[in-house]
């Protein structure tokens, strides 16, 4: 229960209480002292007397004081409220920072629109009720937190802004928003400082390290948390966690495979038969159902044929729940016509056919045709370190002894992101280097070279039908031919501990011939013999050509897969591969420039909307980069603009997590500060009943009673 006053200046009138007290005291001072003889008789008479003149004077004093007090209180228009909200709004001049959580979790549905609608409605009522001598500012809590309105007492503009404001697509950062609020309050001169936090208490964004420690230093700051999470209608059941696209090269049908991972956010029950739909280029492509275990995830793979090489955009969508924003995840893909393979020759010779890479290059593109599916590029070891690995889907190491320092890490990154690494061994190979430096990539260690003397029987591949995607086409005569190929030298290998790998091909003596392993998104394939004729005759056999091509096609993914950018909302996009500042066309057509600073890659920051963003090369890029003055982005896409690619910006799934900050833990986030918590319903109710119960009438009534009583006593005397 709180008292508050709408016209507190009238309380100064309480000083008038001093008047009757002063008169009383002055009268007391004039009290005559009389020496008298028969005091004992007076004492006896007093005991018998029923008249009480002196107590009446005290009573009169009390009544007069009460009358003045009631008058002043009545004029000050007191309001009795059950909560402290009105007290806050009607007390002394104060500075309020309203932090509005505009993260996308606030777009969850409630009985009246979204949670965000309710929050803005509450905030509108709060601002409308603010006395004119209060000033306020507005801070948005979505990441990055920012001030939306500096200190003002102008309610009109703030209310206009509130009408127009929409929930963002970003995550929450309450801590940073509070930091902004504390900074704002540090500039406020008012004695009373308050932070109103209107939020759904989503656990994501309540990072204790982000909360300011300054809050504890200023004890005048009070924090009022209004929780809207209880207003949510229904549950946020599931979300599309991620979507992965893969272009199928191994078959000639040109297929795109879409893997969608759906997460069940309900911890207590599984979801059966959740409808999931694939949209491609704006059209419903495919529909299915998916079963999700409790608090777990499941993956569903769609596939659709590529009709042309135009960019593919689309999204995977699941059935709607309380939070629609996370039910859809966008993707974009630029289909590749061919696989770009980089063949690294570890032992270049003067004669072409003696190159270790000679047979591989010929096998990948036998007629050196630009129409071929695979486009091999041969590189020496010294050139290798200068290559941009992102330009290739597959890297084939042919008898490479070792690599420049740091290059193995580049290779690891390449494979992690989806690249394929094919390693052929040879006499140049330094097993120590492979075992020590390529430990992450190779699941086995190279143990020793097994060489067969000329008169001894060579090793042979164990040719048998296989279900392995790369090998299943080999059958019949091809297998027989393959089985006849003599291998005179090969490395024996030893598996590393706790590593998983496959051995798709063996030698007849059960030695592994091909070892396949996955690392990150990519694959590593080790062939324990050489890819030239030094250790075997395999390259000159007809089966070598389909064999190497199928391994490359099998392991390769579309280049877009490797270099594709799928970022979350508000994450800056660093375009490492670009030399110049490209134009970015955001969803909705807004054109901006991903600006490049000297000695760094272009960065695009305006990724606050989910959607598919297009990148364009344009002629103004060089001017933009060279001139110190920033060049305005063109209103329309220039005619000479060349499409470079696209990237998607999706919601951050972290914000969808159902965890809420418990009320009892609030104090830990605001150490030292006075924290009040109220659910939105109560805050709204308190705000909607007005400023509590006015007591003016009651006080005037009491005043009348006091005056009547005083008059009665005087008359009686």
């Amino acid at each position, binding site marked *: 229960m709180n008292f508050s006053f709408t016209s507190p200046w009238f309380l100064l009138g309480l000083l008038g209480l001093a008047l009757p007290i002063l008169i009383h005291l002055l*009268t*007391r001072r004039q*009290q*005559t*002292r*009389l*020496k*008298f*003889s*028969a*005091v*004992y*008789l*007076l*004492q*006896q*008479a*007093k005991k*018998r*007397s029923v*008249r*009480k*003149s*002196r107590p009446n*004077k005290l009573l009169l004093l009390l009544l007069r004081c009460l009358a003045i007090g009631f008058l002043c209180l009545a004029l000050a228009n007191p309001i009795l409220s059950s909560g402290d909200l009105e007290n806050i709004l009607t007390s002394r001049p104060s500075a309020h920072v309203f932090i509005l959580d505009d993260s996308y979790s606030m777009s969850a549905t409630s009985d009246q629109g979204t949670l965000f609608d309710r929050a803005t409605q509450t905030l509108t009522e709060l601002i409308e009720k603010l006395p004119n001598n209060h000033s306020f500012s507005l801070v948005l809590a979505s990441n990055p937190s920012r001030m939306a309105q500096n200190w003002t007492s102008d309610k009109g503009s703030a209310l206009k802004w509130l009408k127009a404001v929409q929930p963002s697509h970003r995550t929450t950062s309450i801590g940073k928003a509070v930091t902004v609020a504390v900074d704002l309050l540090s500039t406020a001169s008012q004695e009373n400082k308050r932070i109103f936090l209107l939020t759904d208490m989503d656990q994501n964004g309540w990072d204790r390290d982000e909360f300011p420690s300054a809050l504890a230093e200023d004890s005048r700051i009070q924090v009022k948390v209004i929780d809207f999470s209880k207003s949510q209608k229904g549950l946020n059941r599931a979300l599309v966690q991620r979507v992965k696209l893969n272009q199928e090269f191994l078959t000639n049908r040109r297929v795109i495979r879409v893997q969608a991972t759906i997460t069940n956010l309900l911890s207590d029950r599984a979801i059966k038969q959740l409808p999931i739909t694939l949209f491609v280029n704006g059209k419903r492509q495919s529909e299915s159902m998916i079963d999700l275990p409790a608090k777990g995830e499941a993956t569903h793979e769609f596939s659709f044929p590529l009709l042309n090489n135009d960019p593919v955009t689309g999204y995977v969508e699941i059935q709607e729940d309380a939070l629609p924003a996370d039910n859809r995840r966008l993707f974009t893909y630029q289909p590749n016509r061919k696989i770009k393979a980089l063949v690294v020759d570890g032992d270049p010779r003067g004669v072409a056919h003696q190159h270790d890479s000679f047979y591989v290059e010929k096998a990948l593109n036998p007629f050196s045709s630009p129409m071929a599916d695979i486009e091999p590029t041969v590189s020496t070891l010294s050139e290798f370190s200068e290559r941009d690995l992102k330009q290739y889907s597959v890297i084939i190491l042919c008898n490479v002894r070792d690599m420049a320092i740091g290059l193995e890490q580049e290779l690891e990154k390449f494979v992690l992101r989806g690249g394929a690494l094919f390693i052929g061994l040879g006499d140049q190979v330094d097993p120590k280097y492979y075992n020590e430096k390529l430990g992450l990539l190779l699941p086995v260690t190279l143990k020793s070279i097994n060489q067969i003397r000329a008169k001894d029987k060579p090793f042979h591949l164990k040719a048998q039908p296989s279900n392995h995607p790369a090998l299943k086409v080999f059958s019949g005569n091809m297998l027989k031919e393959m089985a006849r190929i003599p291998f005179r030298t090969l490395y024996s290998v030893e598996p590393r501990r706790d590593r998983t790998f496959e051995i798709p091909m063996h030698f007849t003596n059960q030695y592994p011939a091909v070892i396949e392993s996955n690392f990150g998104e990519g694959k590593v394939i080790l062939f324990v013999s050489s890819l030239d004729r030094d250790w075997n005759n395999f390259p000159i056999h007809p089966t070598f050509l389909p064999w190497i091509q199928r391994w490359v096609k099998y392991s390769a993914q579309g280049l877009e897969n490797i270099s594709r950018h799928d970022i979350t909302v508000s994450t800056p996009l660093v375009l490492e591969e670009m030399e110049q500042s490209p134009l970015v066309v955001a969803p909705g057509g807004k054109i901006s420039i991903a600006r490049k600073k000297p000695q760094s890659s272009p960065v695009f920051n305006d990724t606050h909307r989910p959607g598919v963003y297009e990148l364009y090369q344009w002629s103004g890029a060089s001017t933009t980069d060279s001139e110190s003055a920033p060049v305005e982005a063109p209103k329309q896409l220039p005619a000479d603009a060349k499409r470079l690619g696209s990237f998607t910006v999706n919601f951050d799934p972290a914000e969808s997590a159902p965890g809420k900050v418990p009320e009892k833990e609030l104090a830990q986030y605001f150490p030292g500060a006075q924290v009040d918590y109220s659910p939105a319903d109560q805050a709204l109710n308190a705000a909607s009943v007005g400023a509590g119960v006015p007591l003016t009438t009651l006080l005037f009534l009491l005043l009348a009673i006091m005056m009547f009583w005083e008059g009665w006593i005087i008359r009686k005397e």
Partner: protein
Amino acid sequence: MAENTQFNYGPETLSEISSLSIRAIQLVEGLLSGHHRSPHKGSSVEFAEYKDYSPGDDIRHIDWKVVGKTDKYHVKQFEQSTNLKCTILLDASGSMSYRSPDSKSPGMDKSDYARTLVAAMGYLLLKQFDAVGLTLFNDVTVSHLPPRSKPSHFQNILHELQDMEFKGVTRVEEVVGDLIERLPGRGMLILVSDLLTPEEDVFKTLKMLKSRGLEVILFHVLHPDEVTLPFEGDLVFESLEDDPSLGLDPFDVRQQYQQAIQDQIEFYTKNCPTLGIDYLFLETTTPLEQALRYYLLRRKSLRKI
């Protein structure tokens, strides 16, 4: 002599008083002859009458001449003219020092009134060659002048009255209990007091004095303020004796107070005559000569001889 005193009685008062002949109604035993008749008959200077002899009479007083002439035994009786021994008991407690806060209050202060009264009585008695003593008391006997009949004794009385200070608490019972042995067996006792004491047995004390054969005269002196409680406003009454101060509006208690005083006066007025005590209530506005004259006339009318 009165002119040299500090008292507020004028020569008119004293001369007027001296012109009155005070005679005690009852005879008192005394050594000196005066105007008082002794109730005790016996051998004395002045023959009174004869009476028949009865056994037990002193045979010395038989008039043998008469026996010779008439052969009857007559005893000569003499009228003894004795001096009155009078002790004046003046209440010297604090309550007697009451002065009206109103400077225009009529009459004299209570203390002056009482002193004048005592001086007048003393002078009057001395003028009749009676012995007068003065005892001042509050809760104890402050001073005691034994009765003397010398005219110069008046100076002692005046001196005593002049030096006295009204203070302390009235304790009539205790004082009289102490004093009673020192008082002459028979004589007069004049008590001048305001009788403002919470003691309840004052009347018993008077009764005891009377039983000792003393002629008791009680002058009850009060200031009109003490009778009517005429004060107004918020007052703190500070006791002139030892009562705690009391703050009140006199208006609240006036009726009860007046009633209490009137009850007291009525009590003495009604009960004193039953014991043969002369009680006179005097307000300080009452002219002293008027009061004394009234008293003496009243005594005269009651004279048995």
